[in-house]
């Protein structure tokens, strides 16, 4: 009997251990080991920190790194600001079928792949595209307007791609907000800002944090959108990783970049949690 229970326990433990071990830990350990090897000759590698030193010495790399971090934080913030009213409307104002339809509308873009969505934006924003034509037709622009290939287009595309992942946890969090709390907030003399800042936002905090983490992670790790919508001056850090792995055949450097990106995103999430006074475990349970 005891033996059987022990066996069942180990069998149940097997899938998560395999999952974590094979798909998370082993690849990362391998990447870490790879990142500490330097090429000394054809097919000859030695242990060393050259790849990390290269990152520090070459402004190109850490500038891209910083740029990716700053823009990802910005994208996350904009996504939050855009998603919040949408989520509030879905959670508190819409009823029954309307609610389902609105949710579906948020979901709809995700039936197409990210590549198709991004190409859609390109069609809209290019110089001979729809928006440019509209601006000219309405007389707001004298000639063709190029809206693509700049940071604005990248942010737009990324916000669009992250919206759903922000709306869902926010709706979840706001659903449980008793509307009488909002009324009480007004009744006790609060302005709209007061009610939003002191009652609604604190209530939605687990959703905000969960959504922000997801959107931030997706944004930092995005490749297609910045590559296609980005300007000739804008490189995303994932593009550097891709370049090292695929076009430069420099796996150790790519591995070092990959690890640095992991450290960067973890650090920013940690700082975000610190600043908002939220615990990671708590967020994941409630969100």
């Amino acid at each position, binding site marked *: 009997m005891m033996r059987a229970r022990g066996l069942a326990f180990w069998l149940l433990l097997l899938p998560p251990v395999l999952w974590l071990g094979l798909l998370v830990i082993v690849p990362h350990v391998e990447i870490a080991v790879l990142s500490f090897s330097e090429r000394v000759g054809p097919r000859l590698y030695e242990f060393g920190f050259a790849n990390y030193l290269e990152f520090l010495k070459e402004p190109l790399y850490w500038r891209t790194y910083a740029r990716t971090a700053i823009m990802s934080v910005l994208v996350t913030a904009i996504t939050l600001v855009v998603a919040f009213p949408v989520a509030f409307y879905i959670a508190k104002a819409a009823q029954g079928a309307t609610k389902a339809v609105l949710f579906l509308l948020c979901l709809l873009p995700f039936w197409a792949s990210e590549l198709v969505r991004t190409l859609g934006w390109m069609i809209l924003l290019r110089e001979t595209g729809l928006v440019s034509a509209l601006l000219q037709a309405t007389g707001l622009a004298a000639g063709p307007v190029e809206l693509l290939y700049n940071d604005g287009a990248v942010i737009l595309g990324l916000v669009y791609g992250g919206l759903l992942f922000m709306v869902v946890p926010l709706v979840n969090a706001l659903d449980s907000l008793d509307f009488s709390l909002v009324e009480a*907030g007004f009744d006790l003399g609060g302005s709209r800002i007061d009610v939003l800042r002191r009652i609604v936002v604190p209530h939605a905090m687990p959703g905000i944090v969960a959504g922000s983490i997801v959107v931030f992670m997706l944004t930092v790790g995005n490749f297609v959108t910045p590559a296609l919508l980005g300007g000739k001056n804008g490189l995303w850090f994932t593009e550097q990783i891709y370049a090292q792995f695929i076009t430069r055949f420099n796996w150790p450097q790519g591995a070092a970049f990959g690890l640095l990106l992991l450290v960067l995103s973890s650090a920013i999430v940690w700082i975000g949690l610190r600043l908002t006074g939220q615990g990671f475990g708590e967020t994941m349970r409630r969100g």
Partner: protein
Amino acid sequence: MRRPPLRGPAIQMTEIADLSLVRVTKRFGAHAAVAAVEFDVARGAFFSILGPSGCGKTTLMRMIAGFETPDEGDIAIRGASMRGVPANRRPVNMVFQNLALFPTMTVGENVAYGLACRGVARGEQEARVRAILSRVGLGEFVDRRVTQLSGGQRQRVAIARCLVLEPTLLLLDEPLGALDLKLREHMKIELKRLQADFRTTFVYITHDQSEALVMSDQVAVMNRGRFEQVGSPRALYRDPASAFVAGFVGDTNRWDAEFAAADRVRLPGGALVAGRRFGTASAGPATCFVRPESVALAADAAALAGLDNRYAGEVVSVLFDGANSTLLVRALDGGFELRATLPQTGALAGVEKGARVQFGWAADAARIYAA
């Protein structure tokens, strides 16, 4: 039939009422949830609006608080019209049915919320929060989370949160509904004490007549969007102005009957009851009310000789409840049943089911309303 506007007994007209409503109407579609309601609440009064669920009392309260706008009429607080004044600008605060304490805040933060919104300095906020919390007996709970409090404590936080703002008017929307019976009884006294202590005008809505009667200076009985009667609890109890009030306020026996004469009705079982008639109609269907405590019980008929209505009956059941004990009695030849208060000190104190008793009441104690 349009009733003349009902007003409470004379209040000092020299003083402006804290709250006055003038022909306030609110419609939802074709249905008038509140129809031409008018009343004044004097400064420092404990005013209750009593009515069954769906009578429009919640809508009325939400209009006073500013969450709904009247379709017609006006609401004035201390003489100032509230038309176009949003909820957060009114000198009115509300204790919600579910209390609506902010779960993300501590007790102290809940109470400080309104002060913070007004921009009161942090130091003063803290002093006022501590002062009010100790007045409601929660001085040590400032830093507790509201989820850690008992039902009664939460109640007091909700009230303190409003009173710290020193509102002209405190609205209470059935705040005792969620409490268990013992605590509710306790909180009735507590609320009354708080009101006396703070001298703030309370407007209290409830469907529980006992809450209204025990605590209020004035009670308005509301039915189908209208006020049936406004008066002191005693006046409502003793002198209900309508069949609805007679039936809703206090314990009573109620029969559907038929006018037999101007001041006499016939019950469905055939018994004739003499009573006092209210209203003008004196023929057709009528409703007759007799309070249990107006019914005299005796072992032999001679003891009831002075009463207008006398019957011989049989005890159907004894509803023992200490001082509130009653008997359920069936009239032997009239075919009706009624409840009668059973004094625990008299000769009949030990009466059993099936026993023969004599019962009766004065014509003055039976109230007849045309139906």
